[in-house]
């Protein structure tokens, strides 16, 4: 578990370095989902970084595409591409686009427009079913995804269509672009609504790696319904001056001093 925590902190550090180098990006929502990404890429997913297009692999869709820095950090640390590529984030001709696109090794679906990720994951699960592949599909959503009608169409469809090897994880950090979710559009109470839609719902602390792994294991065991993990998280998690401060949602970079302080905090807690 310590190793997984160190990995999550590395994902955070690399994400912030990427955003600093690029001069822009989305630090808050990258930090809030780093533990979920660490658990997925370093414990749960059956993938082969040496062969990103292995047909039988598990699929992962980052529906909240603005968390791309954390996603790229996880992929790079997992070995999909050299870490030197981190510096290409958001640059012309770079491997790492501002939001995920499928030419990046390991990226299974494009994103950056909220609300389309769960549907794409649903389609992947369908294909695996009709082809008899053991593939499981994981989709990471943000609060904003829950306000898009497209997401609720997918939530309605998956249980109706009998799709079971589909796991949605909600990085519920409670803050969206311009303010708190309760102020912009309160989509809750999520667990009750999702259960009513026919999903197997688990509510966890999205920064407790033990709870995350347990939830993923339980989802794997459950064969009767798709699973929705509501992960309560903190936007900006791991960097004291970013936590709960929506000024760090996106569009601003980090000064060298801010980056230095952030990396010291992350390294200190990982030690």
């Amino acid at each position, binding site marked *: 578990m310590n190793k997984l925590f160190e990995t999550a902190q590395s994902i955070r550090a690399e994400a912030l370095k990427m955003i600093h180098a690029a001069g822009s990006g989305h630090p808050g929502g990258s930090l809030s989902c780093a533990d979920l990404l660490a658990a997925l890429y370093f414990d749960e997913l059956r993938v082969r970084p040496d062969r990103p297009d292995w*047909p039988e692999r598990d*699929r992962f*869709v980052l529906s909240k595409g603005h968390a791309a820095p954390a996603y790229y950090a996880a992929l790079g640390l997992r070995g999909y591409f050299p870490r030197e590529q981190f510096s290409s984030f958001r640059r012309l001709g770079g491997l790492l686009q501002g939001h995920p*696109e*499928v030419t990046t090794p390991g990226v*299974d*679906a*494009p994103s*950056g*427009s909220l*609300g*389309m990720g769960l*549907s*794409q*994951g*649903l*389609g*992947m*699960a*369908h*294909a*695996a079913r*009709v*082809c008899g*592949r053991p*593939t499981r*599909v994981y989709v990471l959503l943000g609060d904003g995804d829950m306000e898009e*009608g*497209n997401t609720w*169409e*997918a939530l*309605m*469809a998956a249980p*109706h*269509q009998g799709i079971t090897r589909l796991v949605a994880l909600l990085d519920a950090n409670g803050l969206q672009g311009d303010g708190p979710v309760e102020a912009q559009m309160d989509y809750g109470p999520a667990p009750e609504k999702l259960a009513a839609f026919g999903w197997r719902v688990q509510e966890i602390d999205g920064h407790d790696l033990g709870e995350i792994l347990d939830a993923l294991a339980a989802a794997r065991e459950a064969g009767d319904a798709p699973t929705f993990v509501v992960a309560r998280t903190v936007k900006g998690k791991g960097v004291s001056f970013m936590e709960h401060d929506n000024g760090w949602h996106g569009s601003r970079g980090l000064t060298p001093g801010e980056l230095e302080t952030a990396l010291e905090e992350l390294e200190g807690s990982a030690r």
Partner: protein
Amino acid sequence: MTGQLAFWSPGEQVSLREAFGRVLCHLGETRSDFWLFDADVAGGTGAKPFADRFPGRVVQFGIAEQNMVAAAAGFAEGNCIPVVAGFASFLMMRAHEQFRTAVAYPGRNVKVCCSHVGVDVGPDGATAQMVEDLAVTRSIPNVTVVVPADANELMLAVPEVLDLDGPVYMRIGRSPAPVVFDRDHRFRIGRATVLADGRDAAIVATGTLVARAVSAAETLRREGVAVRVINLSTIKPLDRDTLLAAARDTGAIVTAEDHNRHGGMGGAVCEFLSQHHPVPVEVVGIDDRFGTSGEAEDLCRHFGLTAADLVAATRRVLARKP
């Protein structure tokens, strides 16, 4: 054992959506690589015979087109071909972003086939009559846009559409339309066909306007005007050679489509010719208006899409020749 695909005879009146159902059933017997994605409209799109015959190869989404199109992108990622059928307004317009970002951007092998297009839709009126679909599909990178002219060409086109590795938008049609091509017609994506030769002017038509263009050319021929008739069955990529030859040989082009005059096939032809061989062009289509209720044939008259309108447009373009 699979039966022969039964074609219709030229001159018969057949809805293209009926041909769509027939060819899907036929292909369902011989290939197992495609599935029908439906949003509770299989009865309307013509796909119902396939759905009845191959219920295990239908993925039903209910009336939720955004989810259906984005799910089709994910399905295609797994090397299965989704044939997503619906009414253009509700499918291509509502799920346009899903088509653009989830399907076209990664180049997913998804086939979107829409039955209710243009004023050919008839009495349902403007909400169901999409007169913008060619504009909003051909402006998306990676997308191939196919518009069969009649029931027989549609049946020849569908296997080619399935064999093309990439996103395709195919325009079908609802109302009965005259069969133009016989079973020996050769359909190829990206290749237009010349139905009549002539060097005074050329009518470049697409979809159900092709039969009207043939009829207009016959009228003009009796008056001594030799009109080349071109069936532009692929709107993207354009058959540049055929268009260039028509512009060079005739120096006067009429385009004809059941679509808004803005952004459609006529626009595509003008974009190309204006840069490579500028000649006078008359764009026949719906004059930037919404559709309305009425029988399809009456609507064609109402919006100026008849053979007589094409004759008049040809006379106008001839008068503009330098």
